[in-house]
């Protein structure tokens, strides 16, 4: 009897919940769908009133134009390389630094770390001009160095990994010390293997940040052959004649790679981000 009641009570409620969630899902996903459809349309179709929903022909003309003539193929490659390198380097140094802050004792450790935390709140705007000048002085303007090196260490990343390190059990470490392992060995062979979740969380964050970064690359890059996708997109709206259909194509090229990665790797990736929030 209670079971029947339970089922009847749950149904309308869950229908309502599904309705709300689905409405939200549509709002979340509609722009991507619309962007994708537009990337196959011609300029006339895109500007037409009333709205044309489906393209008349599904050809890749826009993609050829954007990837080739408008150099987005090159931009894609650049963004890929920069994101990969920055993430790899940042992960390395954040892990090293976080390990130092969490598992090793030395005078001034907590004071220095507190300094890190304070600096976390500094808005980027206070930093871009001085950093820009540094790039000028080091002759790194218009090079990958300007994009990668200032980001080789991230305070947020260090903070995040430190939390995870601190949560690891000490016994393994103690055992390793007794065995005579040096700190590097402990770091590499004992602790890091336990940090995959943490590293994944940081990797996700860093990849998303760097892939989509606009302001800094916009300032320090100049040559067309070094530009990233974000710059490409931002530059498109500068021209007098806004080629909307091509802008949408560029949008697809810039967003769908990450979207696809997340859609397919979602379980592991999203979960790791979730836990990072808790630890944070």
């Amino acid at each position, binding site marked *: 009897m209670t079971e029947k009641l339970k089922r009847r009570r749950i149904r309308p409620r869950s229908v309502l919940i*599904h309705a*709300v*969630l689905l409405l939200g*899902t549509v709002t*979340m*996903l*509609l*722009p*991507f769908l*619309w962007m994708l459809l537009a990337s196959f349309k011609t300029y006339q179709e895109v500007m037409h*009133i009333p*709205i044309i929903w489906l393209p008349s022909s599904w050809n890749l003309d826009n993609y050829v134009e954007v990837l080739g003539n408008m150099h987005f193929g090159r931009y894609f490659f650049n963004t890929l390389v920069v994101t990969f390198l920055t993430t790899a380097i940042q992960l390395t140094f*954040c892990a*090293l*630094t976080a390990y*130092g*802050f969490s598992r*090793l*004792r030395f*005078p001034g450790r907590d004071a*220095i770390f507190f300094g890190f935390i304070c*600096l976390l709140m500094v*808005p*980027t*705007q*206070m*930093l871009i*001009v001085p950093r820009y000048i*540094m790039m000028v002085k080091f002759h790194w303007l218009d090079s990958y160095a300007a994009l990668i090196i*200032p980001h*080789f*260490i991230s*305070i947020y990343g260090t903070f995040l990994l430190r939390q995870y390190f601190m949560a690891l059990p*000490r016994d393994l470490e*103690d055992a390793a010390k*007794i065995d005579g392992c040096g700190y590097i060995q402990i*770091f590499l062979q004992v602790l890091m293997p336990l940090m995959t979740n943490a590293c994944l969380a940081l990797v996700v964050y860093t990849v998303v940040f760097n892939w*989509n970064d*606009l*302001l800094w690359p916009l300032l320090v890059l100049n040559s067309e052959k070094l530009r990233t996708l*974000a710059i490409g*997109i931002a530059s*498109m*709206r500068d021209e007098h004649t806004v080629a909307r259909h091509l*802008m*949408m194509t560029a*949008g697809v090229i*810039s*967003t769908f790679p*990450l*979207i696809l990665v*997340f859609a397919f790797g*979602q379980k592991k990736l*999203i*979960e790791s*981000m*979730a836990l*990072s*929030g*808790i630890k944070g």
Partner: protein
Amino acid sequence: MKETTEAILAEPAHKRRRRKLNAMGRREAMWGYLFIAPGTLGVIVFTLIPLLFSFVMSMTDWSMLNTPHFLGLANYRELFQDKTVRREFQNTFLYAFGTAPIGVFISLVLATLMSTKIRGRSFYRVAYFLPYVSMPAAITIVWQWMLNSDTGIVNAALGALGFNKVAFMSDPKLIMPVMIFISIWQMIGYNMVILLAGLQNIPQTYFDAAKVDGAGGVKQFFTITIPIVSPTIFFLMIISFINSFKAFDIVYMIVGAHAITSGGPLANASRTAVYGIYEKSFIELRMGYAAAEAVILFLIILVLTFVQFKLQNRWVHYD
């Protein structure tokens, strides 16, 4: 007592600290410094020094093209009298207070809905998360188009439902709500995923007990859910506020669309402090002046964060 690692670790912390560093301790300290050295150097070079430089720069009239003159607090005085700057900060506050509380609240509601035993939870989780990973510049131009009066599907839908068209992108009164909307749209997924994880930690027994007491869903939400995940909510609020004070990409695409004509009511209604600083630095080339505005922005963020920390005693429950 032999000075083995075990023994030292066994001692209580305060006693450990007062011990002088012996050979082992010194070795550990050396390694400690070694491990944090590159990172700390990086932070000093790329964050601390620029910060100090910024403070100094804010008191000069430097424009990168001239030799700087020390102005004392003249830049700050000018800032307080500058109507555009006042508007910029107004917009920034609107943007931050519009985005952070509403965004976190919506994420909380969504996360709560999703934590009930409904099917397709993984699907929803991904769907809501996708906007977070997409390039703000790109999705801004899509939304700009979707909200276009003539060629946008939102107005087409409104028209089909019998409503009047709304000039989302060209009404100075609506441009800020649009920016807030896009910003919330992007952040919901991230917040929601984090809250979901937190919600899953709430023991079902709490809810069962509440049900027995006769509490409905909404009441349970306010009396059980919110207090228990309040640390996470607090964390998200801080992060969301800080991020919205720092937000650039969306603002750039919207204000910058009118940057051919960098003034006018639309630009004035959408220009936040962060964009204003960028404009003053790299378009007007008044770096000293811009730095002063950045310092003020920083101070505001500090104060707000501090206030939030103080207020947390009122509503955040830690166990």
